[in-house]
């Protein structure tokens, strides 16, 4: 077992574990989403494949894997094939630094926050590539939308992150979690004495997360009723499956980050029995909320979406940033 403690092997193992986690997680989140949608819509949802539909994702993946591979004529072949790979990689990279528990981190680095945000924005590049290389007008429109949407929402998200950075004083995600120990009133979400606008910050973060992961009501990229299947229109089989997987990986990443930054990570809300279960519970609660939102709201307008970011979210997050820096300087100094 000595080999596992060696740094390169440990990292490799952790990455394999993460890959497995992301894959299985995406499969079953799709099932959860379909079942959940069924629940919201007064119908059973998939329940015939396996017991209660538990083999449904297996069937889907096997089918997707065995589907014909096709690079449509006229596309940019290399980019077309590259895009699904690029779309999944950043989410994996980011999950590597997320502290699932005190010790359960693939790589405990002291610049985790920075890394997450820098790799997180590569995701949009992949969707742009897929849209660009598909030689499909819907895909190109979708790619353009995704870029402007992600650029718009990256800013308030980063402003929120900076606010947190100032409050916590560290970029180490594990350290941020450790600071929130001792009960839910210590969570960043409720630390209103540091900055009374912390809950607002969380809401901004959540909205930005929805937009960054292109989920309803901000699903401009895959706006089915407008753009067919958006940037993924020409993708089939597992190429499409990987985009699906990446979408859920990004949701998990966004929710994990929200858990770490605002909800105390693996800390127990009552100060005792902290551990990975708490982390997963909080994260999946957030994921469920994301699914819930999707099946509840209609899609926003595109310019409404941009207006929300530039005219509302950015000013508010700027204000919280100012407020918390002022409070830090004046009150907590």
């Amino acid at each position, binding site marked *: 077992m000595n080999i596992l403690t060696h740094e390169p092997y440990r990292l490799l193992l952790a990455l394999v574990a993460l890959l497995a986690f992301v894959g299985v997680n995406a499969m079953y989140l799709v099932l959860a989403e*379909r079942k959940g949608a*069924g629940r919201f*819509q*007064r*119908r*059973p*949802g*998939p*329940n*015939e*494949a396996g017991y209660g*539909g538990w*083999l*449904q994702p*297996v*069937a*889907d*993946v*096997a*089918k997707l894997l*065995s*589907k*014909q591979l*096709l690079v449509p004529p006229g596309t940019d072949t290399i980019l077309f094939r590259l895009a699904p790979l690029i779309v999944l990689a950043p989410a994996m990279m980011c999950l590597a630094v997320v502290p699932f528990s005190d010790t359960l981190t693939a790589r405990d680095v002291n610049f985790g926050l920075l890394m997450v945000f820098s790799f997180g924005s590569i995701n949009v590049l992949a969707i742009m590539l897929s849209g660009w290389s598909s030689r499909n007008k819907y895909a190109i429109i979708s790619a353009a939308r995704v870029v402007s949407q992600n650029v718009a929402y990256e800013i308030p998200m980063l402003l929120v992150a900076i606010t947190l950075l100032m409050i916590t004083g560290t970029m180490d995600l594990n350290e941020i979690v450790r600071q929130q120990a001792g009960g839910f009133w210590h969570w960043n979400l409720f630390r209103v004495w540091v900055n009374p606008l912390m809950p607002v910050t969380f809401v901004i973060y959540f909205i930005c997360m929805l937009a960054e992961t292109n989920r309803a009501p901000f699903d401009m990229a895959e706006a*089915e009723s407008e753009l*067919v*299947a958006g940037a*993924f*229109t*020409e*993708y*089939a*089989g597992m190429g*499409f499956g990987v985009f699906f997987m990446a979408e859920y990986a990004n949701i998990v990443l966004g929710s994990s980050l929200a858990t770490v930054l605002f909800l105390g990570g693996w800390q127990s809300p009552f100060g005792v029995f902290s551990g990975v279960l708490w982390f997963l519970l909080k994260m999946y609660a957030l994921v469920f909320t994301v699914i819930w939102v999707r099946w509840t709201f209609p899609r926003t307008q595109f310019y409404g979406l941009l207006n929300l970011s530039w005219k509302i979210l950015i000013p508010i997050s700027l204000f919280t940033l100012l407020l918390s820096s002022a409070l830090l300087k004046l009150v907590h100094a």
Partner: protein
Amino acid sequence: MEAALDTSQIVKFAKLDDLLALSRANSLWPLTFGLACCAIEMMAAGGPRFDISRFGAEVFRPSPRQADVMIVAGTVNRKMAPAVKTLYDQMLEPKWVIAMGNCAISGGPFVFPGQYAVVEGVDKLFPVDVFIPGCPPRPEALLEGIMALEEKLTGKRRWPVVKPPQ
């Protein structure tokens, strides 16, 4: 003695093909493609009472690349025929076609001597796997059609056939 030992009676190896067929049968993603009246019944089949999603077939994909089964729900006329053919060609193997309703089967009520518009059956355009008669077929009939397609794939029927009372 050894010749008499038939291992297939003791150990059954699932062939990959069978597994794949089973997977495909449980994950038939239809193309979002409504033509006429039957499309409403197709929507109704996705509705809460019939719920096509039980069979994993509620994932209506708008892009033919991602769809496995094309439910031709309605009349195909001569102006539409090239588009339907293109959609079929754009779908990737393995792919199946369900002709839903009399119009897709044979032109239905719109066939008369001297008709100038309707394609008399989509099997003139591409091979069809399952025909569902009706004008329009009820949602149950569509579910039955999907089960018939599953049977075609796996060789087994999901549920026993319900015989009408004599």
